[in-house]
């Protein structure tokens, strides 16, 4: 489902002396449907960068990133938008929303965008918010004023509202209490069971051991650092 071949990434900082930073070289791996793979490696090695490249948020310098039939590395914006709408979900560490939009709508939006009815989308949103222990009194408020943990749970609810065939999870269990962590892990297990290909970053080792089928240390793709 997710297949990377010889992917490389550099950042060129034109306004800082045109510094060129080589981030990773020749990344190749794949994630099958129904499989959950954890990206590991020390902080700063490029785990999130790689996730963002797969999501089309960062440009790859070379190589191919196949999600189903779409090559994210060479797709036009329209193809990536459609891919994100129907195929590829991404739960980042930060919630980014339009101010003033109620939480319920934020969570229901991915379903509305694929053409589901308002009732159906909001029904699913209510179920998820209740599961993730967001008090019902908050559903009609914008999440911009919520606590960090609440925002993260809203973000997770939004990420799991639609049943994406491929998902990217950036630290989904960070800063969650035990009960909510358990809910998130079961959501991940559910997604796996229905055949989603999942790529995740988990600093929480117990969580990683529980939901992931294998680990991929991306330190091997990092370019050798000059002394």
């Amino acid at each position, binding site marked *: 489902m997710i297949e990377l071949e010889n992917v490389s990434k550099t*950042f*060129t*900082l*034109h*306004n800082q002396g045109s510094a060129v930073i080589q981030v990773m070289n020749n990344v190749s791996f794949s994630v099958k449907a129904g499989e959950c793979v954890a990206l590991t490696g020390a902080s700063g090695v490029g785990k999130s960068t790689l996730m*963002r490249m797969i999501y*089309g*948020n*960062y*440009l790859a310098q070379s190589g191919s990133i196949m999600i189903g039939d779409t090559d994210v590395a060479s797709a036009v*914006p*329209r193809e*990536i*938008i459609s891919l994100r709408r129907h195929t590829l979900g991404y739960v980042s560490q930060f919630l*980014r929303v*339009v*101010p*003033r*939009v109620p939480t319920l709508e934020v969570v229901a939006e991915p379903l*509305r*965008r694929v053409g589901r009815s308002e009732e159906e989308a909001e029904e699913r949103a209510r179920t998820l918010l209740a599961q993730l222990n967001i008090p019902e009194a908050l559903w009609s408020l914008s999440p911009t004023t919520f606590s960090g943990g609440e925002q993260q749970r809203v973000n997770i609810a939004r990420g799991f509202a639609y049943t994406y065939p491929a998902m990217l999870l950036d630290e989904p269990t960070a800063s969650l209490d035990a009960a909510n962590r358990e809910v998130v892990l079961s959501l991940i297990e559910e997604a796996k069971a229905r055949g989603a290909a999942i790529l995740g970053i988990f600093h929480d080792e117990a969580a990683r051991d529980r939901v992931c089928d294998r680990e991929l240390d991306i330190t091997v793709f990092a370019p050798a650092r000059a002394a």
Partner: protein
Amino acid sequence: MTPLLSVRDITKRYGTFVGCADVSFDLFPGEVMGIVGESGSGKSTLLNCMAGHLTPDTGEVLYDTRVDGQRDTVQMSEPERRMLGRTDWAFVHQNPRDGLRMGVSAGGNVGERLMAVGARNYGDIRTKATDWLGRVEIAPERIDDRPSTFSGGMQQRLQIARNLVTGPRLVFMDEPTGGLDVSVQARLLDLLRGLVRDLGLSAIIVTHDLAVVRLLADRLMVMKSGHVIEAGLTDQVLDDPQHAYTQLLVSSVLQV
């Protein structure tokens, strides 16, 4: 799929000064594209060339009309182009005073566009106008008031209602949130986003506000000195800008 709008090599000069040069892109149905750049970078010139307010020196603006398929709007006769402007297209000006008739009531402003496309039944026009005022969150009891008695944010929302009442497929927006305070801006952004999604509109938004394009636009074009220097998916251009100028632009935004 046929693009709704195909822009081919548009160039507009003011004497020897380049307004915009060699701009080409395709806009597909349901897509929202942002155009950003500093003042004088040619973004408004480009927008006005596309919307038929300015005649480009060279190039084509192919629009997928409902009846005849793709037509070059630059070569169209003036009445044809005006008809498009009243029906299939909408243009939201930065200053609502440019897009509204200040001496006519709010309902009249909305109804006028309907009458321009042949609506004659007063009751129907009023019902539709009331409906649209509601959609842009203007209280129905203000329908007979003149826009000059409205706040800036209300005027901008009225301008949007006036433009969208005829069910256009393509909306041009020139700094739609410029000059509004941030709380009003947020409300307007939320409104625009909902309308774009529910009506399946395509839109081209010119702005210098990167936060606005991040929230509204799927795609982004960055202009400098009349040229498009970078284009792509909005979040990709903003998070991983490739061109030196885009990097400067993105890194210059103040964090709140």
